[in-house]
């Protein structure tokens, strides 16, 4: 039992909190300085093979999801939890004590003065209307404010705890998918049963040609229920996500796509839309795969002969493709405009380049918890910083009163304010 108490005492201690916070800051530093999510080869080229091995062994390549980062966060949660549990009884006791005027005057004081006009001191200290009590046969007028401020740190801890819990649960359980395509296409949202029909995609520009906004009009259909025949229409923009059926749709990105036409011996065989990066298996020869690697709306060649685009305008389209047969690369090259590509009996052409839209579809059922935690943290900080508890009381003694003041956090600033108020009350300034 004694050792259990020792463990709880340690887990709830401020020293442990400071140690964990410093450790967390150091971990965040490491995570921000070391580029995240790269391969061994990448780190070896950046640093050295030895360092690369160390980075991967210590999971510094994914620092914010590493076991040690989760462990630090978990200990911080334990610290916050036990700190609040341990402090709760004394806080309740203190609140009761500081709410009771008779208890307040029995407590400590940090300043004292003899004054004739006690009311003036109460006024100058911006204290609320004092209550009258009797102690040791003397009349005592007590004024106190911001007793609730005692709870500031406790509430802040609750907020941070909820914030970490909401964020962690969200990271573990959120569902996130992407849907991309060009207007007219209908795409499934993974295996959720929802389908997104891309009705329109527009790139709005300012007068000077700079980018203004991306707008995608969508219709979301729930195919898991036959009742939903019409679906729900929504418009998605950057900074303007749409909420449909409890899922959020975000305008995430855009890129280029093009139509691909395949003919066999001069007869039409296949026609599809391919987004850059997508591949297509030839219908009657599935081992033959054509990949559209990139679309250049305004094709030019760099000094080293590499294809690139001179602008985002569709002045001179070009297509970088690669062809695979049974996973072996047959070739990779650039097609200039509608220049055909011939592979035995097949003729492939790319044409009608257009922008595709990429929509992120997300459901995070715990975001509200993180948000509530953030708001509670704010509230706790406000209580801590701006509602500092203080009490002023006057013991009446004939024509004069002895005044006392107490503020645990106010320190010298409270004492100076008290002394100035007492002095001003005496001089009538």
């Amino acid at each position, binding site marked *: 039992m004694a050792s259990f108490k020792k463990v709880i005492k340690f887990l709830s201690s*401020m020293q442990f909190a400071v140690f964990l916070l*410093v450790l967390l800051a150091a971990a*965040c530093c490491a995570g921000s300085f070391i580029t995240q999510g790269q391969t061994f080869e990448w780190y070896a080229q950046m640093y050295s093979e030895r360092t690369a091995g160390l980075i991967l062994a210590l999971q510094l390549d994914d620092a914010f999801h590493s076991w040690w980062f989760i462990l630090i966060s978990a200990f911080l949660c334990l610290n916050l939890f036990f700190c609040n549990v341990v402090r709760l009884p004394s806080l309740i006791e203190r609140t009761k004590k500081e709410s009771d005027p008779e208890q307040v005057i029995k407590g400590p004081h940090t300043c004292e003065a003899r004054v004739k006009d006690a009311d003036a001191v109460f006024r100058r200290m911006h204290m609320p209307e004092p209550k009258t009590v009797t102690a040791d046969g003397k009349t005592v007028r007590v004024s106190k404010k911001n007793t609730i401020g005692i709870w500031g740190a406790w509430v802040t801890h609750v907020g941070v705890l909820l914030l970490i819990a909401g964020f962690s649960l969200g990271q573990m359980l959120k569902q996130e998918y992407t849907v991309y395509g060009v207007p007219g296409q209908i795409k499934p949202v993974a295996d959720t049963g929802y389908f997104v029909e891309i009705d329109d995609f527009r790139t709005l520009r300012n007068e000077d040609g700079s980018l*203004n906004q991306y707008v995608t009009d969508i219709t979301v259909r729930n195919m898991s229920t036959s009742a939903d025949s019409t679906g729900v229409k929504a418009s998605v923009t950057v900074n303007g*996500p749409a909420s449909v059926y409890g899922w959020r749709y975000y305008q995430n990105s855009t890129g280029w796509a093009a139509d691909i036409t395949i003919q066999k011996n001069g007869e039409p065989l296949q026609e599809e839309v391919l987004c850059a990066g997508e591949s297509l298996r030839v219908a009657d020869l599935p081992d033959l795969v054509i990949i559209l690697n990139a679309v250049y709306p305004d094709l030019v060649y760099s000094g080293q002969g590499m294809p690139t685009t001179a602008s985002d305008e569709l002045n001179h389209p070009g297509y970088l493709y690669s062809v695979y047969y049974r996973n072996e690369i047959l070739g990779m090259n650039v097609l200039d405009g509608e220049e055909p590509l011939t592979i035995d009996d097949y003729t492939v052409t790319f044409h009608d380049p257009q922008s595709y839209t990429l929509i992120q579809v*997300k459901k995070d059922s715990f975001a509200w918890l*993180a948000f509530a935690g953030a*708001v509670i943290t704010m509230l706790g900080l406000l209580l801590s910083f701006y509602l500092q508890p203080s009490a002023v009381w006057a013991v009446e003694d004939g024509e004069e009163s002895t005044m006392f003041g107490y503020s645990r956090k106010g*320190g*010298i600033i409270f004492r100076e304010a008290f002394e100035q108020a007492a002095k001003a009350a005496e001089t009538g300034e």
Partner: protein
Amino acid sequence: MLQMERILFTIVLVSYFLTMVLYFAFVTMKNDKLYKAAEIVQLAGLVLHTCTIIARGIGAGRLPLTNQYEFASAFSWGLNLVSLLFIYRFKFPVLGAFASPVTFLIIGYAAMQSKEVHELMPALKSYWLGFHVSSAIISYGAFGVSFVLSIIFLMRDQIKSRGFLDEHIPSREKLDLISYRSVALGLLFLTITIISGAIWADRAWGSYWSWDPKETWSLITWIIYAVYLHLRIRKGWDGRAAAIFAVVGFICVIFTYIGVNTFLPGMHSYA
């Protein structure tokens, strides 16, 4: 309007320099009249700076808080505002002598940035921009003041007793309390900055927290000041450790603002 903004900015730059010179003269020549003059120039600089930012906003047709120049200008405005408030509130004119060089350095950094006006990219077109960046300005300004106060706190023991500075600089206990007040203001507004940024990020990028370097360094700054608050109330500590953390905290603020943009590009690369 942008032409007027440039002229006003130059006047503000000169007024901040003059403020710094007058405060130095006040401390070195030990003349209270110079402090009054410094305070008037500082206040005039703040008013003109406000006009400069408004002129920039009208000229650009948007909130002028989106690039390095605009933020640096607003940062120095925030630092000037908070330091002036603390000088008045705590009757502490020597604070101006320490804060005005920092303000001048930051506006000097702004002067070196490109002043061109560009259209905002779609991600920046949000009403959250105002909340997020303006709270960051107040927060950074308050942390700047706490940095200066902590430097004064750490130097306090070296000051000759009964001298001019000894009479004009509060006791260590009071310095610690004033520093605490400025950290409290800064931390509160930093929390607003982080929360509003998270809500905005969720709308713009589809994720309220992505461990982007700017986000991560804001969190590091928040943690450093949280450590400061814990060290301050720890029994037996004389305030030096807390003051050192307040200095480290401001170094983190500067790194979050300039260092992250320079060395750790991420989604906030435009800021």
